[in-house]
């Protein structure tokens, strides 16, 4: 890692935005470890800026409807990878049954 330069710019990459989960998985298959997944990006963009990773392709997951849902059953809570945190916080059962999750998201 080159920590002698404090980069402002990002390295070059191609941004591809699939519209379905199927498409996204096909892209991953195609690019393998030359691709990284972009959801919220809060970790990814920092790693890019610091040149810790240099992917050729970023696969943008933000337009995939299957990944934006929250599913609550008796047995489990499933939160899609691109669900905004604020949406999770508005569901009453999260605060009632998953207090630790709620507190860490809300802080």
């Amino acid at each position, binding site marked *: 890692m080159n920590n002698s*330069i404090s980069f402002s710019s990002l390295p070059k990459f191609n941004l591809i935005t699939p519209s379905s989960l199927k498409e996204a998985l096909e892209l991953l298959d195609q690019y393998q470890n030359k691709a990284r997944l972009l959801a919220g990006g809060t970790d990814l963009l920092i790693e890019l800026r610091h040149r810790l990773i240099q992917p050729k392709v970023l696969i943008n997951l933000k337009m995939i409807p299957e990944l934006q849902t929250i599913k609550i059953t008796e047995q489990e809570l499933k939160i899609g990878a691109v669900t905004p945190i604020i949406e999770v916080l508005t569901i009453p059962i999260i605060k009632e049954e998953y207090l630790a999750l709620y507190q860490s998201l809300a802080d």
Partner: protein
Amino acid sequence: MTKYVGQSVARKDANEKVTGQALYAFDIDYIPNMLIGKFLTSTIAHGKILSIDTTEAEKLPGVVAIVTGKDWPVKIGLYAGDRDILAVEKVVWIGQPVVAVAAESETIAEEALSLVKIKYDPLKPIFDPVEAMSSKDRLVHEKMADYNHSPAFHPIPGTNIANHFKLRKGNIDHGFKQADEIFEYEYSMPQISHAYLEPIVSIGHYRKDGTIVVWSSAQSPFTVRYLLGITFATQTSNITVKSPFLGGGFGGKAGLNFEPLAVLLSRKANNRPVKLSLTREENFKSAPIRVGMVAKLKTGVTKKGKITAQQVEYIWDSGACADYAVNVGRAAGYVSIGPYDIENIKSDSYTVYTNKPYATAFRGFGHLELHWVIERQNDIIAKKLGIDPLIFRKINTLKPGTGITGNQHRLREDAGCIDECLDKVWSELKKNKEKTTPLKPWIFRGIGIAGFMKGPAQPPNSASSAYVKFNEDGSAIVSIGTSEMGQGTITSLAQIAADELGLPIEKIKIRGDRDTDRDAYTWQTVGSRSLFMDGNAVKNACLNAKDQIFDTASQVLRVPKKDLVIKNELISPRGEPWKHLSISEVVMGYMYPTGESIGGPVIGHGKYIAKMTILDSETGAGNPAIFETFGAQGVEIELDALTGKITINKLISAFDIGKAINPQLCEGQVIGGSVMALSIAMSEQLQYSDTGELLNPSFVDYIISRPGDIPKEFITHFIENPQEDGPYGARGIGELTMIGVPAALGNAIADAMNVDIFDLPITSERVWTEIQKQRPEIIASLKEKLMEEEK
């Protein structure tokens, strides 16, 4: 009776800042042919530079110049020339700039730097200041003897000691013999980041005719100008330094920082202007930070509460360069033992080099640090002796006419009153103390107080000047050298001018940006000096302007000069307001009805110079400051014994500022300064790996206060015992609002749970750990209670 002084007049710069019209250094992009500058930094904390290969980088299209240390191996520094512009022979901290580039864009600049290859030969680094002080084989500056330094400082070549300040008064052994009890404790605080909102930007233009123009986020543009002249061997008038509004400074922009590098880049880049904008990480690692401190205090006291001896050793961790930090050590040294009258003092203040980012001025300038030590120990002593904390302090406080340094420079009669500040805060603390029982048995409440003082740390010939010139409509432009970094001083100075000149404040223009060609000189914008020094200069300039105005008006009105006054923009004899001239008729010259004209454009000028002396190098004796502002602060806290979390319910302050020229601005200083001090006291620390890498160069991991951390209630008193030689009786306040907070907090924790903390920051982890260590019986009994409730 003043119309504006004493009123909470709206800030002169509020409108342009709030509407986004205010320009900061980053906004300057209108200079033709400007290039982007960028630097790379050392990856090791200490080592020789073996080779720098820039050949690949130079070939990159869009790269205009690459600069290394050897291009201009002149050492820079405020008080000691110990810093390379770019590392020349060796690197001395991780983050030190080594190679810089000027290119057509930021992306090209960064790519170019990625192509530079550097080989280092590592040397053993030293990080701990106590170790560094005694080390003879791991030297950060082995060539210290060759460096230029100001005669006010005393480096010790062959060591890591950049300055040793001594204060000696009375006979310390005698003092301890007189004591009934002796207390000795050690204290510490880490290096801190200024965390100003606006990262540093410096634009350098080394023009083809040899003149130099600089735009920079600089608190002290005149100092930048002066030092650039020395660095580039050119006369001062060949250099212009402009500093726009600053987004906070707090001392971090007080000296000479990246201006030489920007100028050097420009010089090599075909004399094109080069803009260096630091990222936040670069501000953490490459720009200067605040000193760390380790201290040992030994106090002798009679059982009646009189302190007979104070022996203190302050060790200041200055990082790789001593810059301002030698003066921090000196300033802390000459105050040493707080606002107290002690017969026997032995104080040594050492500024020490380590292989970490370098230290500069920081709001409080050694005084926040030293009062942590003094005021914590005072509370410990008072408790042990069974004396009320307030009474104990007042037995020992300074009174006007007593001396503060070794050979007794005596405080003026109108110096202000520390006792009044202490009384005010203590009575508020006791009066407002929450009477109800805490809701939970693991919540404890406590109150704590600290008393303190500070004056501006300046050279004895520190000076300010001002001029006032008028416009055709009778409005005026006031020029001063003080920078506007958010503190609001220019508004107070405008108020003074408005009252002196008899003009409405809307007719006083005072600029927030600085230009060393255009503006009246001031030494620096530091040390809480500006209102006092520049305020006096402004007053004098207005008096001078009035003299010129009255010269002309007395002829026209046929009245002696001494009978004239200005009120509401009209010049008239005292008591006869119907016989008048308007200011606008006179300030550009007066024309009689017949056409003969007298007078001319009025330019009033004023100056003010400090009244101090050099301090004796063996005893510290002399007159160190033009005023001391006394203050006291107290907190009421709630402490959760199970988590170590502290909530500040009340923050109470009293300052004897002589005159609150603008009460709202003063309150702004109190709230801003107290919250900043709480942040430092509770969560801020620069943390390093064992190889000297800064681990937290971002606000994710360097924790500063957020709105939720602001105390629930502020109670503030401005005491006005006027100081006759201050403008309208005023002293300074800017740094004072920070100084007592950490010790007050430490004292409140001790009051709440009998837990003593000696090291900052007071994180909840530290509190929790100390409670477990010092009060295990409380934890045990709480656990029992909780288990019972479970049943």
